[in-house]
């Protein structure tokens, strides 16, 4: 208590926001953002370049293909929206798949002209936003009941809501003639970009997307998959910065206060129910955007891939691996799990293929506890990603409970963007 006369703390609590150093400050704060985005931008080009070198078999085996990277984008965005409410207010949204599904189904139904009031040819960007607003409203409805509960009961009731919606969608004949199989976009490709301006729009989809030849005269050809990757990436980046902005607003600070001590947050004057509800709606909005871009890319939606509770489980697992309450962490978590999936599947290379093709016959037939090595590879490696993911998940929960980004931040003593420059300076001086 004797520090009363000590000088007011050295580190100025108010960061300069508008001074002349503003731009430099801004760039320094976002250097890590820029580096990560640049890395994601270059990845498909680097990957394709590697495939033309002698290292191709190893690149195919150990690096995720661009199709997997697209999954990283939309599932990463979905996991971020999950983290937005679960990691920052502390309320686990176990029914988050409902919002993903709402976004996905809205986009597909709107493209087929099945949404009343939305004519068939409405640009995808508009239906995407409308679907997200619908999901936000759905979140308000689910939340208005669920936020009367806390802790595990909140998680259970949101899960219950999502499962009810899942069952309804599975048997809703309006969606298609076979609702358990979901619905498919029957018309043209859906485009991401500026609505009604063809030159500023990119068609997405594995088969229907547009490919670019000789980009800007640089001699670079982009396949439809790569173009879709970039188009989806734009949406993900915009959504990430939007959510990050909200986290850093006074509203976001209230969310964190609720997570830390809801009783005290109420006692200092926050009607926490309303704040939680608003955060849930924002989270549902972005969860639906993730579902919408997934639907635009895959052009078909099924109840099991959208509304089912395992979709939420995916987001939960990747969020825990990436880091709870870090916002950016889930995208790294998704990158991690999708990378593992790619390495262990044979869809695009994969380590099983590599072993089968590269190892000499004598080694493959070698005896390993009574079975041949080849049989072991076939049964224990090929397509066994969920098994190993389970093991990795257990290890993460036990030994890295803060996840990849959370642990990194703990080590650096702050966010990577703020702390990394100082650490690097120490090494390069």
């Amino acid at each position, binding site marked *: 208590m004797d520090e009363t006369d000590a*000088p007011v703390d050295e580190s100025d*609590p108010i960061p300069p926001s508008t001074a002349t150093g503003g731009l430099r400050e801004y760039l320094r704060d976002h250097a890590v953002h820029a580096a990560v985005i640049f890395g994601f931008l270059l990845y498909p080009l680097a990957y394709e370049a590697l495939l033309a070198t002698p290292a191709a078999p190893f690149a195919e085996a150990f690096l995720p293909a661009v199709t997997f990277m697209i999954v990283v984008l939309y599932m990463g965005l979905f996991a971020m929206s999950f983290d937005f409410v679960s990691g920052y207010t502390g309320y686990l949204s176990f029914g988050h798949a409902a919002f993903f599904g709402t976004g996905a189904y809205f986009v597909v139904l709107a493209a087929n002209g099945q949404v009343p009031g939305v004519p068939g040819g409405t640009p995808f960007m508009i239906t995407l936003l409308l679907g997200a607003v619908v999901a936000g409203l759905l979140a308000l409805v689910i939340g208005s009941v669920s936020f009367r509960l806390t802790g595990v009961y909140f998680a259970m009731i949101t899960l219950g809501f999502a499962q009810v919606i899942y069952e309804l969608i599975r048997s809703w004949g309006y969606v298609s003639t076979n609702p358990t199989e979901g619905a498919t976009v029957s018309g043209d490709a859906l485009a991401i970009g500026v609505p009604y301006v063809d030159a500023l729009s990119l068609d997405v989809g594995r088969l229907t997307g547009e490919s670019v030849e000789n980009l800007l005269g640089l001699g670079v050809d982009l396949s439809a998959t790569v173009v879709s990757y970039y188009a989806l990436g734009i949406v993900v980046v915009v959504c990430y910065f939007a959510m990050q902005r909200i986290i850093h607003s*006074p509203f976001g600070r209230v969310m964190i206060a609720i997570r830390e001590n809801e009783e005290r947050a109420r*006692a200092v004057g926050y009607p926490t129910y309303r704040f939680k509800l608003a955060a849930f709606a924002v989270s549902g909005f972005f969860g639906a955007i993730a579902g919408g871009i997934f639907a635009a890319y895959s052009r078909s939606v099924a109840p099991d891939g959208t509304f089912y509770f395992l979709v939420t489980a995916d987001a939960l697992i990747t969020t825990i691996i990436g880091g709870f309450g870090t916002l950016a962490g889930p995208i790294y978590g998704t990158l991690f799990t999708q990378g593992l999936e790619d390495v262990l599947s044979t869809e695009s290379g994969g380590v099983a293929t590599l072993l089968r093709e590269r190892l000499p016959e004598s080694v493959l037939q070698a005896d390993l506890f009574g079975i041949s090595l080849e049989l072991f590879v076939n049964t224990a490696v090929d397509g066994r990603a969920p098994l190993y993911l389970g093991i990795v998940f257990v290890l993460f929960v036990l030994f890295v409970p803060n996840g990849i980004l959370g642990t990194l931040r703990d080590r650096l003593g702050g966010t990577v963007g703020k702390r990394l420059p100082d650490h690097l300076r120490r090494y390069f001086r």
Partner: protein
Amino acid sequence: MLLETEGLTKRFGGITAVDGVDFALETGELCSIIGPNGAGKTTFFNLLTGVLEPSDGRIRFDPESGGDAGGASAGADGTGSAIDITAASPDETALAGIHRSYQITNLFPTLSVLENVRVAAQASRGSDSWKLWRNVADFEDHYAEATRILERIGLAGEAETVTQNLSHGEKRSLEIGVALAGNPDLLLLDEPTAGVSSEGVDDVVALIEDVAEDHSVMLIEHNMEVVMDISDRIAVLHRGELIADGPPEDVRGDEAVQEAYLGGYGREGSEAAGDGSDDEATDGDVADGDAAADGGRRVRAGGEPR
């Protein structure tokens, strides 16, 4: 009248924790609430702040009542500028101007000391908390207010410290700081010296006296020395009832208070045991502050109805 309760009652099943309390507080007063353990003091605070809803009775709060007792109270009684907060929720009572600190430290543990106070200051700034699109760093007045409060409670040097790493005494000061951040008209302090070492108590008491200069304060406290020293007025609760209410010297001599404190629990026992506990209680509660604080903690474990 700043605060007025009328027949305030709270029943938990068969137990009546607060029983028909008529209490009034003038603006600018420092009124201590004392009473043996389990007397319903914290329950009384919980009723005032809306954490619990009264079973019976009313609470009126009038932050406009002003400092000059005569004219203002007449006006308040007559015009009814007071608001009824009987059924208000904790956030509503806070925004009305009643803020509290807690008996058991109740802060935002992983946030910085500055952020604890800043987020509390933000709550009282209307729609600022609903600005989703602006960076929190743009709200320099929140930071200025928080820094001013940290200086006042002597924690300016710990602004960036993570709260859970503070010492116990510092946490007790921050408890008061967070309550102050809402710019309260009435400050309810629930055992601010609980668990504080005997040297630390002086600092906390100095802080309470400083805060009482420009706030109306209600204080729950077990340390009789402190209570007698700093209170303008003392109200004594016993088994939920208000048994005495007046200046310290009057309350000290009040027979009902003596009975409640010294004989209340001994009556069921034998005469000899009653005498024994008399002496012990006299020493513990009136003379020695630390023993009293220990007593407070023991009861918490035993379960004062909250």
